[in-house]
């Protein structure tokens, strides 16, 4: 039995997420499985013969690999003897430089590393991550895929992603035979706009290597590593085979990043009762031992599994941190769908976003989720505006930038046209004009015309068989009038000669210019050090498309000369007991022309006049210059009113009914929520003011309650009030206003109807 409220709560997105208790025997636990080994090391005659309590004779393949390649035995005994809390403190001690910690952690065992990291709370882990990431400048990677595997759309999405600031793009395939075309479309799109981003196509290892050798991709990220031998075997690899593959890529000048993450071993049923973090520490040490420059982790596609457990999000942050302690480039996850709840997703993102990592996402879904072939995408195209706002709010460099609609359309069209030209030139199945147009303006692949799938797959297969390569694309682009794209692709391919992007945390910026942990090392040492936004970058982040210039707000039509009101000298004190003064603010009808809601001042004034007349009294309009405060405007008006009753109104539409003998900040009726006032309200305000003057009973003007009014209007309210306040002339007396031109303009009908018979 549930209350109605609890029933509604139970249907909130958060309650569609799965939550479970820990079950250490199967590895469903983040830290501290009772079956985790205790930290320890024994070295005999320069040989590691006991690792975390396990004698060498019992080592599995991963232990052997780690023992051989990942632990600095010259420092290990001293490092292992340090108290774990003391080491943890060094991680957040700004007096201890990163390099010293990298050396120290290079001499610890997996169990010791986990024990140290587990001494940090979540905020301390973020502080440590800020200090320990390898590259000073943070960056971001995008996923670019679509369900129809349409090359024009892939290219357009790739071009837009780069325009938005992503420095790496990753695609994959639904049908693996599409891989050469997907890689080609991504390559072309990625170099279309501002360029330059590295691109990859996530497919099976051998095909992935072929694509890279053919110059269709520029890096690879598919080298998965697991924390137990059985899981490793299920992945059909060993640490040695993966390490060899890494060298193979490097021998062709191709950047590689490994993949690991908490939860994969439990998912495969091979966690051996060890905690996820302990197994991940083993992975990361194996990756370091293999000589990889970096890793993508942060649970990756398993993310919902650790998140189902207590401390899951903290644990994922811990694994990110351990990657940086191993001195690895870190692409920190945030890619696969992690929660139904936007609140939970955003909160989790902050753990990587605020400290910054080399690639905050290892795949931000730059297109709508429905087109994401990586399994959802935790954030997608429709969250990009949110992301840009978060950067602006926190003054954090999340790697992206706001771009104008025009710029987006321009690069999308050009990328789609470039793909069309390359396909034509290389006699691949044609890309139609309709596809180019659709790719330019599409929401998703749903909007794309169908292609001949069989023809595409045949052609894609032949493409590699015939030994075609990125050079064919370069030639085709140059001959079809896309010289700029051709040159950028060539410049990227040429980087292979240099191997510059094989160094840790390399990204390729327009130029192409390689920035890595070698020439941009993270030098964070507390406030005033490390990465900070340059003035240009700060400005770029601040310049949201939707950000308005407050100087222009509310003045959209105020450039018209004159106005509907004419001043007729200083206002006198009235003697007519049948008159109601309408006192308007200093900008009303002149500097500003409409209320907060955009109701023209002229119509507002007319409605109040009509209301007063409907009660048989006579309106008089005066302008107050000495103040912009609603209470004081009304109060001044009341001093001038023959009846002693006045309506005060600010330009933004806030209104008050005042009486001569009341204190300025008291009132008969106040209507502070201008957003709730429409023309009929203003007419009723006029009537009520008249009724007060006549001594009749008055029913207050009904107003609606809108909880979002303050959120929606506080900025505009402030800006309009600032414009009004700028029109204040302290010692200027109130002015009588001749509003007869207005009556003429409004037509006589309204007035006649308002007059009592």
């Amino acid at each position, binding site marked *: 039995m549930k209350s109605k409220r609890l029933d509604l709560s139970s249907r909130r997105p958060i309650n569609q997420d799965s939550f479970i208790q820990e079950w250490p025997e199967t590895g469903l636990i983040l830290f501290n499985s009772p079956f985790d080994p205790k930290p320890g090391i024994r070295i005999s005659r320069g040989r590691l013969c006991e690792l975390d309590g396990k004698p060498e004779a019992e*080592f599995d*393949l991963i232990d052997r690999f780690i023992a051989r*390649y*990942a632990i600095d035995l010259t420092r290990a005994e001293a490092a292992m003897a340090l108290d774990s809390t003391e080491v943890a403190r060094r991680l957040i001690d700004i007096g201890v430089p990163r*390099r010293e910690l990298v*050396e120290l952690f290079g001499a610890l065992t997996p169990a010791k590393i986990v024990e140290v990291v587990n001494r940090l709370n979540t905020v301390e882990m973020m502080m440590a991550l800020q200090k320990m990431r390898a590259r000073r400048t943070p960056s971001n990677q995008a996923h670019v895929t679509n369900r129809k595997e349409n090359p024009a759309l892939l290219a357009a999405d790739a071009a837009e992603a780069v325009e938005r600031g992503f420095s790496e793009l990753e695609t994959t395939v639904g049908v693996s035979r599409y891989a050469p075309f997907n890689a080609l479309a991504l390559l072309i799109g990625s170099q279309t706009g501002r360029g330059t981003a590295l691109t990859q196509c996530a497919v099976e*290892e051998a095909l992935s*290597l072929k694509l890279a*050798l053919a*110059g269709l991709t520029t890096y690879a990220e598919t080298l998965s590593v697991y924390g137990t031998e059985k899981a*490793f*075997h299920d992945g*059909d*690899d*060993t640490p*040695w*085979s993966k*390490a*060899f*593959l*890494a*060298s*193979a*890529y*490097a*021998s*062709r*000048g191709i950047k590689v990043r490994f993949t690991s993450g908490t939860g994969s071993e439990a998912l495969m049923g091979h966690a051996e009762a060890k905690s996820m973090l302990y197994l991940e520490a083993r992975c990361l040490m194996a990756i370091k*031992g*293999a*000589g*990889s*420059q970096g890793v993508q982790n942060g649970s990756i596609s398993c993310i919902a599994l650790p998140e189902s457990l207590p401390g899951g999000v903290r644990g994922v942050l811990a694994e990110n941190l351990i990657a940086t302690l191993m*001195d690895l480039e870190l692409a920190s996850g945030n890619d696969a769908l992690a929660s139904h709840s936007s609140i939970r997703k955003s909160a989790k993102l902050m753990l990587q976003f605020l400290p910054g990592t080399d690639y905050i996402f290892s795949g931000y879904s730059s297109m709508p989720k429905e087109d994401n072939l990586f399994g959802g995408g935790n954030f997608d195209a429709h969250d990009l505006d949110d992301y840009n706002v978060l950067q602006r709010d926190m003054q954090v460099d999340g790697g992206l930038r706001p771009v104008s609609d025009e710029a987006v359309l321009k690069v999308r069209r050009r990328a789609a046209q470039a793909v069309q030209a390359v396909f034509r030139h290389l006699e691949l199945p044609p890309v139609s004009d309709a596809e180019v147009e659709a790719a330019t303006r599409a929401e998703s692949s749903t909007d794309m015309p169908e292609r001949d799938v069989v023809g595409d797959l045949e052609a894609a297969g032949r493409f590699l068989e015939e030994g075609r*390569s*990125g*050079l064919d694309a*370069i*030639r085709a682009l*140059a001959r079809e009038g896309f010289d700029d794209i*051709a*040159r950028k692709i*060539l410049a990227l*391919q*040429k980087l*292979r*000669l*240099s*191997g*510059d992007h*094989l*160094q*840790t945390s390399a990204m390729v910026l327009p130029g*192409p*210019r*390689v920035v*890595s942990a*070698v*020439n941009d*090392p993270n030098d964070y040492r507390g406030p005033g050090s490390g990465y900070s936004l340059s003035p240009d970058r700060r400005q770029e982040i601040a310049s949201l498309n939707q950000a308005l210039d407050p100087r222009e707000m509310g003045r959209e039509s105020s450039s018209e000369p004159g106005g509907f009101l004419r001043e007729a000298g200083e206002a006198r004190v009235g003697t007519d007991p049948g008159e109601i003064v309408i006192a308007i603010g200093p900008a009303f009808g002149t500097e500003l022309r409409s209320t907060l809601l955009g109701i023209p001042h002229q119509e507002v004034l007319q409605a109040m006049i009509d209301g007063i007349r409907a009660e048989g009294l006579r309106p008089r309009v005066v302008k107050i210059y000495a103040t912009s405060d609603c209470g004081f405007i009304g109060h001044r008006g009341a001093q001038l009113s023959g009846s002693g009753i006045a309506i005060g109104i600010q330009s933004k539409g806030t209104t008050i009914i005042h009486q001569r003998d009341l204190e300025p900040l008291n009132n008969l009726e106040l209507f502070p929520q201008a957003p709730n006032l429409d023309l009929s309200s203003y007419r009723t305000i006029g009537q009520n003011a008249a009724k007060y003057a006549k001594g009749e009973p008055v029913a207050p003007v009904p107003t609606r309650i809108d909880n979002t009014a303050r959120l929606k209007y506080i900025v505009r309210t402030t800006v309009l009030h600032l414009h009004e306040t700028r029109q204040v002339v302290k010692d200027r007396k109130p002015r009588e206003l001749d509003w007869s031109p207005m009556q003429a303009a409004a037509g006589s009908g309204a007035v006649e109807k308002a007059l009592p018979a």
Partner: protein
Amino acid sequence: MSNITDNYPLSEKRPDRLTTPTGASWKDIDLQSVLDGTLSMSDLRIAPETLELQAQIAESAGRSQLADNLRRAAELVRVPESKILEVYQALRPGRSTPGELESLADELESQYRAGRCARFLREAAQAYDVP
């Protein structure tokens, strides 16, 4: 010269030292050479000497394992792709006996002067061989 990392990135600071295994130099590679057809993908390859430079850079940045990887890679520049894939396959679980890995190591050493890779394979063979 003060520090090897002062040369980094080589593409900006020392393009004069960049050649391809086919003998082309950095400045030879431009759009015209692609259009002429004088350039092929095999020209767009890193040279062993360059990988050695990058290994030294990695080492001086404190990254000895990365340096080892780049030095193994330098040896593999000379090894054809088919052989590389064969070695990779042989290293995968349950694919080969220690003896087969041993003979692949011998081949890498004798035919391609890939001593580091050969040692790496022998270490794998030893590790795989423990029951």
